[in-house]
């Protein structure tokens, strides 16, 4: 029996609240216990960005398939829509982080009295007012586009084809804007942490990381929903395609990782190599763990056809990739904010992420409960139910 609408049962809700509570406790521990303000700021930045990105990927999944006129994902796309509900939530939390004292802890360029010659050159871009202008334009547009895409998707439940065409137009706008905005956002929120350093590939590298993490969480969500008795029409074919994405995006991430690393290593210019030098010196294990979790494991584990057709392989690999891209973000943020000596991964870091995960699931499930799980009047709906990957 396929349940048509999602309902958050009290057990699940309690677990999620517990997770959020644990996150809050870890935050308190972080602020008043051992770790200290810098680690707290770094950790909050990591989690906000990580989960906003995952939400954005949910929306990207829906919109990019809309403009590609793809049909197979129709019966699972409401999950992506639901993930995207975190975008406004995460944006507000990120704003709070910046406004309530995060900026001076995270970004050395905010300390305007101490700017050296190089940072002075960048002042036209790296200044607090302009930073906020960009922040509001980016997150504002994300929220507005999210709202309209979601609205149009729900309107498609009437079966009127004019919404199908509107969805395509909105999707094109969102996809183009996402490409530009994630690049600029990565410069502002991540790359400027190491303000003396730069890399033209950075924005795309961050984008590839969020793609892999987003698909990983998509798979995990689908699995959980099936376990709860929903989405019974989801079959091996859908899972196979999601598995292909996880495999492909992981390889794509590794490709961008090696591009960035090899070029900086090869030219050996000190102002560029300092980035990797600091990471390999103070965080050597994480440096290799990053590669193993995000590339070696998904590459080897998902190579065969059958591995991608079963949750038994896909879910553990998704969890590993989810942790892996967390590690990736950690070592993008922490060396610059906290430094090698004081950094660590303890109760604060892990607990806070558990809290955010709980919040993310809560928001996602809430959004899922607001609409039918499957857009049955979608013109590609039948294609999505009766398809085979063929290979």
């Amino acid at each position, binding site marked *: 029996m396929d349940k048509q609408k999602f309902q958050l049962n009290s057990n699940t809700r309690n677990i999620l609240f517990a997770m959020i509570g644990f996150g809050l406790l870890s935050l308190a521990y972080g602020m008043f216990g051992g770790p200290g303000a810098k680690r707290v700021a770094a950790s909050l930045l990591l989690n906000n960005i990580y989960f906003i990105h995952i939400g954005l990927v949910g929306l990207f999944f829906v919109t990019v398939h809309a403009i590609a006129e793809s049909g197979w994902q129709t019966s699972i796309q409401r999950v992506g829509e639901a993930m995207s509900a975190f975008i406004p939530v995460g944006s507000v939390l990120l704003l709070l982080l910046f406004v309530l004292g995060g900026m001076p802890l995270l970004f050395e360029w905010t300390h305007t009295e101490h700017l050296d010659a190089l940072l002075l050159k960048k002042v036209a871009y790296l200044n607090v007012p302009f930073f906020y202008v960009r922040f509001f334009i980016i997150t504002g547009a994300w929220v507005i586009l999210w709202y309209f895409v979601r609205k149009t998707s729900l309107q498609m439940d009437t079966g009127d084809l004019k919404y199908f065409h509107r969805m395509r137009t909105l999707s094109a706008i969102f996809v183009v804007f996402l*490409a530009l905005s994630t690049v600029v956002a990565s410069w502002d929120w991540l790359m400027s942490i190491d303000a003396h350093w730069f890399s033209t590939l950075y924005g795309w590298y961050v984008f590839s990381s969020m793609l892999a993490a987003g698909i990983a969480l998509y798979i995990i969500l689908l699995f959980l929903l099936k376990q709860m008795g929903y989405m019974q029409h989801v079959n091996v074919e859908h899972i196979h395609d999601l598995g292909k994405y996880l495999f492909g995006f992981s390889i794509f991430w590794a490709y961008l990782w090696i*591009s960035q690393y090899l070029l900086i290593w090869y030219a050996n210019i000190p102002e560029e190599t300092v980035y990797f030098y600091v990471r390999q010196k103070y965080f050597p294990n994480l440096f290799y763990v990053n590669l193993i979790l995000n590339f070696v494991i998904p590459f080897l584990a998902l190579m065969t056809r059958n591995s991608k057709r079963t949750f038994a392989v896909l879910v553990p690999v998704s969890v590993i990739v989810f942790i892996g891209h967390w590690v990736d973000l950690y070592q993008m943020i922490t060396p610059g904010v906290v430094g090698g000596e004081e950094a660590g991964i303890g109760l604060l870091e892990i607990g806070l992420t558990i809290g955010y995960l709980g919040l993310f699931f809560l928001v996602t499930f809430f959004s899922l409960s607001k609409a039918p799980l499957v857009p049955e009047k979608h013109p590609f709906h039948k294609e999505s139910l009766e398809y085979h990957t063929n290979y």
Partner: protein
Amino acid sequence: MYVSPIREPLIRGGKTYSQVTKDIMAPMAGKPSIYWYIGITISGIAALFGAWASYMTVYHGIGTWGLNKTIGWAWDITNFVWWVGIGHAGTFISAILLLFRQKWRTSINRSAEAMTLIAIACAGFFPTIHMGRLLLGFFILPYPNTRELWVNFNSPLLWDVFALTTYFLVSLVFWYVGLIPDIGTVRDKAKNKIRKAIYGFLSFGWTGSARHWSRHETVSLILAGLAAPLVLSVHTIVSFDFATSVIPGWHTTIFPPYFVSGAVFSGFAMVLTLLIVTRKALNLEDYITINHIESMNKIIILTGSIVGIAYLTEFFVAWYSGVEYEQYAFMNRAFGPYAWAYWIMMTCNVITPQLFWFKKIRTSVVATFIISIFVNIGMWFERFVIVVTSLHRDYLPSSWAMYKPTFVEVGLYIGTFGLFFTLFLLFIRVFPVIAIAEVKSVLKSSGDNKNDTHHE
């Protein structure tokens, strides 16, 4: 497999399987048209021009070119990268669109792959001839020798050797394995004894056995899975030729994916240029429909936009980095002595593909043809701007110089056009330009007399 009724058909004209065979094999039968003869005469003359230029280069030396100490690479490498880039579309269509289950690729992949092979040959011509002492060209291969030397595996130029060789061989294999069943069709339809014997040999004894087909599908799929990262790696390694250096405008981490996008961008433009003429000349408009052209144009918007974003990123980060040499490199590109090349590049690459957002333009054959040519012009200038402007004024002003191509260099480039079009014109006479078997396999589901197919 169910196909939603709102989708446009991929094959028009209510064809049956035997009509598909007949239509696609028609260009190979009888005498070629007068236009074919005119075409191959022109391309033949161009090729001869290239032969003369090659003789000049090999016999008289690289001094017949416009290179100097400051600008050691110019038209040679620009042309090399341009041709390799064009080749990427064929593999993209064959491999990546196969992995994405895009059925519309079936009527364009055969000619696109052929184009790839020819383009790679044209590309490979340039690094070969720019060596100067061609007789010693085999030095680039790692073989045990009496000089006890090995090649420098640390060098991107050597990585190029491996990348291009692998790319050519794998593309050849992918193209040919796909072609075998269609050669079987040509063999079986041949009436002439010699023709039957030749195609019989080339068909490797293909019988149409279901077991063979099953393995054929597996091989195609795995080759696609191998060719997809391969095509990314080839242009990435080509970009490493520049990005591993310390030259401003060359050393930048975005080059690998930016070059790959640019390659697909220019490649699709060339496929469109070729196929718009081919479909008209060979009466294949029922197979290469407006739908196909529109889909290719969408890929052009996508890849063209990625290239545009890369330009903006490079520009911004050049400023952001605070590195004065990098900043100067970009100012010089836009306002220095080669500014005319830069602005041609910007107009052709950034502005023209954006026109395809308008449905009227992307469904117009004429507009597409014109834009496809502009895209290729723009992408040639992009490589020229990257190579020459970064070299002609880098760190040391006393070394700054200018470059102008000579007649010989122009001749080599025109020669490759001659080679390209001659081989393509021969291809359309010798092999079916559309993958007959693949089109038949989607006829039921995506042709315009669609029935709801139901297997099992």
